[in-house]
């Protein structure tokens, strides 16, 4: 029964390392070996890689982006593909951890023929994988709001989402609209969530609100009773939070229990607009209780018109086909990643047609050309319509469900925000908009 202490130490260290050491990736669709990005043989598949968390606390993000990839590529393939190539999607699981993300991306480059575009690259892993992807001269549409990409030029980096600090301002603006005075912060200890805290604190001060308490949630912890007690004791009017995975639902449940059966109102980030998040949170505290107490900021997306029609038709045609997608599939129609990466894929595919090349170093500048375009260019709302216009030689400007794009010199095109809630059935409702002037008033 005696056991050497060394063995115990080895076991504990090995056990602790489990999370950090595991990486996985999977492929969806089929790829044709031997097809190179710059000179893909006719008819061979071009691959769009979804580099994002498919496991770990932020596991809901990967399937959200994959849904947009499936939707966009199905519409593109139905319209004849790109330069004679069909498009397929591949998932690359970063686990939301830079230590796992870099080897996963390196493996992706080593093993993927016909790779033509990368999407995803969330704040969890962007800082570590963007330089790697850029060094491979591969175009990428990233879902990171990290401010370090505001002023650093990566030639192959494109972004259709605003900096995180603007999202922090948006959350504070929602609190203002709802007349809250005392705000508790509860953000996960991951990079993507921590980035919201400082801008939120400064915006709260600017808005004349009181920071009731600031709790950091360890995403690997199994209970947050102490944090919940501290939040309740600080008597906040609302909690601003982003702690994905099981953390936020667990926190909500424990707050409800410790607060006499009542939830404290919550203001979430756009990452909370996902079927997986709704399912977990509603199961934890009850759908009616959750929806009555939840608001989130979200990027403004269209909910009608030709661009939305094309998008919703393409996306909903993939219902039941996207690995990892669970819950109400229509929620993806409002998910920021679902909308903006659909636009990103269409922009890249159209740029390939315009440049007559699948090589990112050749077609990259045409992403800007099609997104910004020249004055007087004809606006088109779907890949099929824009591709036809390009083939006929007319100047066109793609405008998707994410609205018009306007890339700056750092390839950033940032949208404006709206306020979302859920209905008890899980559908997303737009209940307000946030003017740019409101956000400017809260900025440092």
């Amino acid at each position, binding site marked *: *029964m*005696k*056991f*050497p*202490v060394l*063995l*115990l130490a*080895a*076991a*504990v260290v*090995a*056990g*602790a390392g*489990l*999370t950090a050491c*595991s990486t*996985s990736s999977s492929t969806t669709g089929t790829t044709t070996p031997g097809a190179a990005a710059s000179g893909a043989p006719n008819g061979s598949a071009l691959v769009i890689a979804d580099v994002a*968390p*498919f*496991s*770990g606390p932020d*596991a*809901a993000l*990967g*399937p959200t982006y994959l849904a947009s990839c499936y939707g966009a590529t199905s519409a593109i393939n139905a319209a004849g593909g790109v330069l004679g190539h069909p498009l397929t999607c591949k998932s690359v*699981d970063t686990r939301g951890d830079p230590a796992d993300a870099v080897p996963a991306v390196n493996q992706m480059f080593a093993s993927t023929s016909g790779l033509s575009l990368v999407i995803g690259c969330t704040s969890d892993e962007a800082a570590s994988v963007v330089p790697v992807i850029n060094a491979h001269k591969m175009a990428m549409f990233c879902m990171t709001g990290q401010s370090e990409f505001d002023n650093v030029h990566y030639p192959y980096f494109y972004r259709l989402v605003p900096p995180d600090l603007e999202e922090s301002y948006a959350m504070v603006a929602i609190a203002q609209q709802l007349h809250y005075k005392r705000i508790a912060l509860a953000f996960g*200890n991951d990079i993507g969530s921590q980035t919201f805290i400082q801008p939120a604190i400064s915006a709260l001060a600017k808005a004349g609100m009181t920071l009731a308490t600031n*709790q*950091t949630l*360890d995403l*690997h*912890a*199994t*209970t*947050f*009773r*102490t*944090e919940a*007690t*501290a939040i309740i004791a600080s008597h906040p009017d609302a909690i601003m939070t982003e702690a994905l*995975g*099981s*953390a936020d*639902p*667990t926190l909500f*449940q*424990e707050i409800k*229990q*410790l607060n*006499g*059966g009542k939830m404290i109102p919550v203001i979430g980030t756009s990452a909370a607009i996902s079927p*997986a998040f709704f*399912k*977990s949170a509603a*199961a*934890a505290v009850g759908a009616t209780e959750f929806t009555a107490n939840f608001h989130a900021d979200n990027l403004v997306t269209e909910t009608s018109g030709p661009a939305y029609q094309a998008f919703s038709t393409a996306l909903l045609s993939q219902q039941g086909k996207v690995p*990892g997608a*669970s819950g109400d599939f229509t929620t993806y129609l409002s998910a920021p990643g679902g909308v903006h990466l659909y636009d990103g894929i269409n922009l890249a595919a159209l740029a390939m047609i315009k440049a007559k090349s699948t090589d990112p170093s050749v077609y990259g500048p045409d992403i800007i050309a099609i997104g910004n375009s020249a004055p007087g260019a004809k606006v088109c709302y779907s890949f099929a319509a824009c591709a036809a216009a390009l083939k006929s030689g007319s100047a066109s400007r793609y405008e998707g469900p994410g609205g018009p794009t306007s890339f700056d010199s750092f390839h950033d095109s940032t949208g404006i925000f709206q306020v979302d809630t859920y209905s008890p059935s899980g559908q997303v409702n737009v209940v307000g908009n946030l003017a740019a002037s409101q956000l400017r008033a809260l900025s440092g």
Partner: protein
Amino acid sequence: MTIFLASLGFGLVTASVLAIAAVGFTLQFGVTDVLNLAYGAVMIAAAFIAYVVNQAGLSIWVGLVAAGAAGALGSVLLNAGVYTPFQRRGASPITMVIVSLGMTLIIEFGTQAIAGGTSVSYSMGQGPTVSAGGLVLSAVQFVVIGLSVLVMAGTHVLLRYTRLGKAMRATAANRNLARNCGIRTARVITLTWAITGALCGLAGVVFAMDAGSFDATSTDLFLIMILAAAFLGGPGQAYGAMLGALIIGLATEISAAYITPSYKYVIAFVALLAMLGMRPSGLLGERTG
């Protein structure tokens, strides 16, 4: 005082969940000589079995029974299909640890591949909440504490008053001597895997109920707490594991109330290291040397 009472209540719940898991783990290690690091992975796989039962419209308490049965069956198969063949070939203890780590990844990611990477929750109410001073506990948490007490009492009865329990203790103390005394140690070991596997399944569901929301990797950190409780009490010592679970559970929650919660595991493990420094064999372990 209010904060202390509140954290004491939280600590009791955490300790209860931990005790069920740690007693199963340490009994398994004590009798079979396998430091089964796949224990946490089996726990979460069993929690998902209960989830499937629960999603089918049945009560979570039915799911609890199903998870216990699945944990027992899974653990017996794990031993028969993986650990025993390695032991038969004379694998060293460190090799067995590596094998169990491999099984952890296989079970955990296998569960993830089937269930998906996102978190899930049981469909169940928490029941009425009882408040006294700063102590706030829900009906479900009282049930968890009660279940833990029941498991501890059951373990005590099993080890003290049954032939199987005595055979388990004899096998744990000296397997060859037990065999020479006529105890069918192979059968005892298989039954131990079944009993501790059932406890593992039970612990998985209770863990998931307590957490409220869980995914395939949720027990990664909890496994380290199980190891801490088991080795604090003395490896292989069921009563030691109960004591260890109580200390670790209370230490994490009470320290979180007074220091920042981010350091609660640090405080617990500093206490563990200090205690092991004074008593390397654990609180109730055999003294050596």
